[in-house]
């Protein structure tokens, strides 16, 4: 019900201006969807008005970026990957639709850290479920593995990962957070001894400092 009214409102604005509506025109709830996992395809009439035919909002990238990464010892921080000489070109549909995705601000990204997905947008604070080794507060991390990036109407999905040239996502290390001390009693049957195990883990906190989609010209060069 909500989505239908939403869609209608989007449709009206789109048909009147035949361009993408600025986000401040949208109702408040519509902007809330940006931070949720809900996937909204753009209404087909709207895409017809803005694009031509055969334009699907979610276009998988054909270029699967398999970049040889310098293997570092597990305790240290991964270094920046060496830039491969021959990079696969973007497919035509991506080239066509990427400016539209870029024109619509407030992007979200599904960044993968150690193969775990985090659906984030700019300004989000992420508590990682582990203590990231080798980083101190103030460090800037570049997140370069993502399965999807999108805005309100457009989503670019990777196969399975996106080309890392398309977007820039940076995260600032805010610090660490500790959980309350947990104690667990380890008791074997028919034995008087009780062992108490204590555990208190630390978790790294990140803030997504920057998230932007790069223009096609910069990606090509």
């Amino acid at each position, binding site marked *: 019900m909500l989505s239908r009214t939403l869609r209608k409102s989007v449709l009206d604005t789109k048909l009147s201006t035949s361009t993408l509506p600025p986000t401040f025109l949208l109702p408040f709830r519509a902007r809330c969807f940006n931070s949720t996992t809900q996937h909204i395809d753009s209404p087909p009439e709207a895409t017809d008005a803005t694009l031509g035919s055969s334009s699907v909002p979610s276009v998988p990238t054909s270029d699967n970026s398999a970049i040889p990464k310098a293997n570092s010892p597990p305790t240290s921080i*991964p270094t*920046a990957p060496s830039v491969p000489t021959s990079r696969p070109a973007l497919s035509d549909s991506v080239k066509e639709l990427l400016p539209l995705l870029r024109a619509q601000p407030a992007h979200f990204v599904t960044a993968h850290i150690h193969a775990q997905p985090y659906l984030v947008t700019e300004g989000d604070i992420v508590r990682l479920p582990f203590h990231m080794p080798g980083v101190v507060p103030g*460090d*800037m*991390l570049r997140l370069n593995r993502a399965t999807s990036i999108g805005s309100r109407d457009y989503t670019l999905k990777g196969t399975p990962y996106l080309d890392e040239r398309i977007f820039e996502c940076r995260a600032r290390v805010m610090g660490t957070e500790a959980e309350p001390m947990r104690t667990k009693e380890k008791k074997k049957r028919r034995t008087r001894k009780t062992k108490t195990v204590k555990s208190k883990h630390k978790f790294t906190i990140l803030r997504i400092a920057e998230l932007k989609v790069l223009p096609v010209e910069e990606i090509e060069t």
Partner: protein
Amino acid sequence: MRSGIGLPKRTQGVLKALGLRKRMKTVFYPVTPEVAGQIMKVKELVAVREVEKALSKEELKEERRPDAGYYLESAAPR
């Protein structure tokens, strides 16, 4: 990849002869007709890949490790 439990003793014997004692175990063999025949006997239970040279245990583990997905761009003074 898959277990040979409950299968005929001959099939289990082939698995054992290939050195596949547990599920998900990886073994390396040269390409020979003998090995090909053995694999054909247990083709429903295994996955096969051709590699240049035998990988060590560490290399296999490194292959399974997922990508970190981040790198340090600018470090704070520490």
